[in-house]
């Protein structure tokens, strides 16, 4: 082997062994393989050599070049790996035990329970209706078979407005409008009326932890030929079991509401103790949950529906009460407080 070549090789290997950075690597590459690098320099003065020697020298030079190239490549990879390892070593392992810092919005708890109820009723073919908060005496009382000076008006203290209208005391105030809206489809096409109408209601009373002047109800009606008390019990039991996602026993007691006949107070088996008796059901095993009944013939008639042909049931769920039961809200005033410390906790509540 040509001495110069072998000297160069030795020199390269020595320098290569000493380098530690990519920059040094590049310097070596340029100093050996660059246009004016040592290898090119080594070929200078080759013209004086014999053809045989030229060939030998050329071959040896090329071998040297490729050796250097491969070695540089290997060194490059080694340095890259070292660098990567250094980066990994320098990277700390993060403390995932730190508390989460997710910023989330929140729904009002009424929205959550309302949606859950709507989902159940929609699955059974009910439409969801909306209605105004300011209503007339006709909507809230007269069309519900509660004439003026009827003692039933005592059952609810009403906010009257100076123009003679009032803030609706019950979601039932929408009943008449809903009958009129859907009566043609019922009578002409035989489409049963199945509607729920959630809404905000108002009672003129002093507020405390258990009483609010502003609260939410959800009324529901179903009207068709041959709707019976037996159907009412079935629907209430089924729907409440769906709403609470567990098997609920229901119990009817007579209750007086002028817009239903017969009218009932519906009790459910206590959600806490299941019926064996506990503090939350006052040891009765039952919770009074919602008034319901067979729609009064007069109410149907005022809604343009012939009570001899059609019957129906109606019920009123207290959404506010439901939300309080579901989320353990003890003070009803929290719901209208607008206090984010309280309300921001209700991020979402997907029912599966």
């Amino acid at each position, binding site marked *: 082997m040509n001495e110069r070549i072998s000297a160069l090789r030795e020199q390269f290997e020595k320098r290569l062994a000493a380098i530690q950075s990519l920059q040094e690597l590049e310097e070596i590459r340029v100093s050996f393989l660059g246009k004016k690098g040592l290898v090119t320099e080594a070929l200078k003065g080759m013209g004086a050599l014999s053809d045989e020697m030229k060939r030998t020298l050329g071959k040896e030079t090329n071998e040297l070049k490729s050796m250097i190239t491969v070695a540089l490549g290997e060194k490059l990879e080694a340095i890259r790996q070292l660098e990567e390892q250094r980066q990994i070593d320098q990277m700390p392992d993060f403390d995932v035990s730190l508390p989460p810092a997710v910023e989330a*919005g*929140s729904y009002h708890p009424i929205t959550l329970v309302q949606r859950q109820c709507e989902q159940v009723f*929609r699955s059974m073919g009910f439409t969801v209706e*909306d209605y105004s908060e300011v209503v007339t005496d006709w909507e809230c009382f007269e069309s519900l078979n509660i004439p003026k000076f009827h003692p039933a008006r005592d059952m609810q203290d009403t906010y009257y407005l100076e123009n003679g209208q009032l803030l609706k005391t019950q979601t039932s105030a929408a009943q008449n409008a809903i009958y009129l809206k859907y009566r043609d489809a019922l009578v002409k096409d035989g489409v049963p009326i199945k509607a729920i109408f959630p809404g905000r209601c108002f009672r003129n009373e002093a507020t405390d932890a258990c009483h609010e002047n502003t609260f939410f109800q959800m009324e529901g009606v179903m009207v068709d030929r041959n709707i*019976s008390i037996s159907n009412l019990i079935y629907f209430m039991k089924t729907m409440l079991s769906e709403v609470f996602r567990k098997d609920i026993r229901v119990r009817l007691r*007579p209750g007086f509401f002028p817009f239903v006949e017969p009218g009932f*107070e519906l009790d459910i088996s206590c959600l806490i103790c299941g019926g064996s008796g506990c503090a939350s059901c006052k040891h009765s095993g039952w919770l009074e949950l919602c008034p319901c009944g067979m729609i009064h013939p007069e109410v149907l008639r005022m809604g343009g529906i012939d009570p001899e042909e059609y019957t129906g049931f109606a019920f009123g769920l207290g959404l506010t009460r439901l939300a309080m039961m579901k989320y353990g809200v003890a003070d009803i005033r929290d719901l209208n407080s607008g*206090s*984010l410390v309280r309300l921001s906790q209700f991020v979402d509540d997907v029912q599966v």
Partner: protein
Amino acid sequence: MLISMNWIKEFVDLRDYDNEALLSLIHRFSLSAAEVENEIALKGSDVRGVVVAEILSVDAHPNSKKLHLLKVDCGEAAPVDVVCGAPNVRVGMKTAFAKVGARLGEIDIAPRELAGCLSYGMCCSEKELGLSEDHSGIMDLDPVLPNGTDLKSVFAIDDIVFEVDNKSLTNRPDLWGHYGIAREFAALAGRPLLPLPEADLTAYEHLPKVDLDIEDPLCQRYSCLTVEHITRNVSPLNMRIRLFYCGMRAINLLADLTNYLMLEMGQPMHAFDSRRVEKIRIRRFDRPFTFQTLDGVERAIDENTLMICNGDKPVAIAGIMGGLDSEIVEDTTSLTLESATFDAASVRKSTVRLSHRTDSSARYEKSLDPEMTTHAIGRFLYLLQGIDSGVQVTSALTDQYPFHYPQVELTFTKAYVDRYTGIRLTDEDIVRPLKALGFGVQQDGDRFTVQVPSWRATKDVTIKADIIEEITRIYGYDNFAVNTTLSPLYPVRPAPEKTIEDKLKDLLVQRFRLHETHTYIWQYADELKRLGLPVEENVKLQGAVNPGIETLRRSIVQTQLCLLKPNAGYAADFGLFEIGRVVKGLKADGLCDEHKHLAITLMSRTADHRTLYFRLRDLLCALTQDIKHADPEFVPTAPAHAWEHPKNLCAIRLGGVELGTLGLLHPSVLAKVDKKASVVFAELDVPAFADIPASPIDYRVPSKYPGMEQDLTVISDRYAPIAEAVAQVNSPLVTGVQVVSIFNDLSGQSISVRISFAHPDRTLTGEEVQQVMDEIVAVLGEKGIRMKG
């Protein structure tokens, strides 16, 4: 209303029922008739070992002036030593005596030292036995009672008393007395209802009638009778116990008897001093006056209030309360007994006007059965004669009965019952409960005809559906078979507004992390004052019981602003929203102009006014882009509310429809909330937004050929002219415009934009791009807008 089971048992034979069976029957009553409150009192269960005892001797106590040393005979072999502090002790008196080993409430009676002397038992007051509030002295019993007699064998101390929720009796005038309740128990137990013993009033037909004239149709029936020679003043103990257990205080025999009758039959009665009511007239007056009722209160009577009068002089407010002047007094020897029925609505209206409800008016409001009046007088006399045998009736029963409820007869078929109930009831299931409740029933095949008894026919049972209730409640709802409906199925599409409302809430919560809150529909007067804001003129509420509630709100933002300061500690940055109602005065038809709004308020102590303003503007754009696939326009507008910023306030428009406003809080209000914070708000009409049709999604295939970008720097304080110029040139090659930077120097504000170009089918040429750029610059030039540099 409190109900005594002993009283019920007078009318239904339940002697074979032990306490457990009675409690179970009360439970069935609660499920079938009217709600019974949870707490049921077993009266007398805490009283044991109390007997009749005679005081043999009374000696002074050596160490006490108040106490006495007694020897009493309580029926045992030897007299017993007792120390007693009652002021009314005397030798020979018979009293209630709790022997050693007896129990009174929580106390076990044991030998006990009182001021140095041993006492082997205790003489008892009525209060100590739980029989009344009377604690003035020990009981003074009938001397004929043998010593050692268990007090419970003589007096009805043991009783079960339960409370029926009055609200559940609203439609049941017949259940406002024990006899009506007893009828329900009889039906539930399947036993006959015993008759109510009455005096035979025909015996007095020969006596003169009372001078009576009903001059007003609001009086439906008026019956009266006069009675003399009443010698007793105190009611028998058993009657007083019963009244006390039912929540009434004993007063004197006559007052107690009228109360007793009211609790028994539900018929309010009134006893006048006969000297004060010689000519009974029932009428209203033409003009208002004041009248002193027997509770001593002067009450304003107007021309709508029905009065009982002696000639022209009012003596009682019909159905509500008697007057002080005609009340029974010490020297009353002759009384006139009133038993009447008045128009229910009239009594109710009067109680509302007078703000005065009584046990009597509560019953009249429910529409009492006029058939009761004469029976109540017969019953009253029967009881009075039983207590005071010397009384003399001095008039014939005088009765005017101008208003009769129609006899209600209802006909229905078995098929009707089957359809309404959804179960198969037998004929017996239908007939038996009706008969037990006093209905007349005739059956002809599948057809039933029922006559409604008078006590249910005043308004309670008037239609067939009412009969269904009677049948099913006695049958028992727990016994119902439960069936689904057979109704046909149809698809249900949610209302568009509802869908969009839900979507808005989802976007605001999930994407923008806002918090949904509810505020009241009225303006927060106190909080507004603290913010230096006026209560805005609007429709008012009448007679709200809560202070500070008077005027409905016109804007949800207004109520939201009141939540900012209380929530300042929650976070440095937060946003609220609410979908709720506002009222904007009255419409032309006089009804409230109600709107459903979405209101959003953002507050920040980290973002400046401009940043926060744009945060909300972009949020609104995101809502419209997401739901309507379009951008809204923001048009500067003038403030309509005191909290709105005079300058940075915009109307929000979409598709030519004005939806609401976006604005910055007025500095004066902001100063009251938090000087260092920024607050922006927006409020828009939800149905108006929902009604705007959504643009279809316009899918465009991106060009395969390389695009170009050109920058343009324009001297302008507004971006709008640039957008307008690009739109006016309307080149199909322009694919987008982006603001690169905004800067200010001596020549004013400049805006640099980068315009993107692409050709769908080929590579762009520099010339065509330049041509579009030139056109844009020319249009801007026409608007008087120059380029920078």
